[in-house]
């Protein structure tokens, strides 16, 4: 079963607004990552946050992690039309070896 559930499933905002996406997961993790996917192509790694970190920034991206609630959020500030994509969280789960389980994804549409 999916490790991560994301909400909302779809989000439509105006250019310049902020976009927030949330990810919840089920088991203990080593780290959590966020990825972007444009039009069903390959995924692009955005940011990684470790289980002992609470917040991380990268450019217009801000990621938070609450391990007590088993949840993470991705905030994109001052969104642009080029941010239109699907966003996935992925959690590193150890089961003999590390593997990454992807969430259900949020489809973001930024309107110009």
């Amino acid at each position, binding site marked *: 079963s999916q490790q991560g559930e994301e909400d909302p499933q779809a989000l439509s905002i105006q250019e310049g607004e902020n976009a927030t996406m949330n990810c919840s997961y089920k088991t203990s993790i080593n780290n959590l990552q966020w990825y972007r996917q444009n039009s*069903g192509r390959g995924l692009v790694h955005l940011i990684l946050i470790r289980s002992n970190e609470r917040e991380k920034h990268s450019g217009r991206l801000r990621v938070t992690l609450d391990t007590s609630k088993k949840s993470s959020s991705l905030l994109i500030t001052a969104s642009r039309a080029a941010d239109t994509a699907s966003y996935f969280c992925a959690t590193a789960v150890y089961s003999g070896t590390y593997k990454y389980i992807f969430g259900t994804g949020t489809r973001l549409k930024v309107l110009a």
Partner: protein
Amino acid sequence: SAVISQKPSRDICQRGTSLTIQCQVDSQVTMMFWYRQQPGQSLTLIATANQGSEATYESGFVIDKFPISRPNLTFSTLTVSNMSPEDSSIYLCSVEESRGRGYTFGSGTRLTVV
């Protein structure tokens, strides 16, 4: 970061046939991962491919249906065997970057089975 060349980028195949997808990495990596993304869905891990050993398959995926080769540290193939329309998906390979840099993905193979 690593650069992955994945091919073919797309294919339309007849049911009952097989398709082999190739991934070439520009650096040596220990593990390569194969994912399937069904239409409108998230990614599901098919298997982990280590060089020199048999691939490790996730629940719901078997070697007879998805044989994997890993002849060296820069190359892997995934074959989708005896295809049916339910196999229509995007298939992606990926490798793990050095610590803290996540995964790098190939551009994906969009497979349609008719």
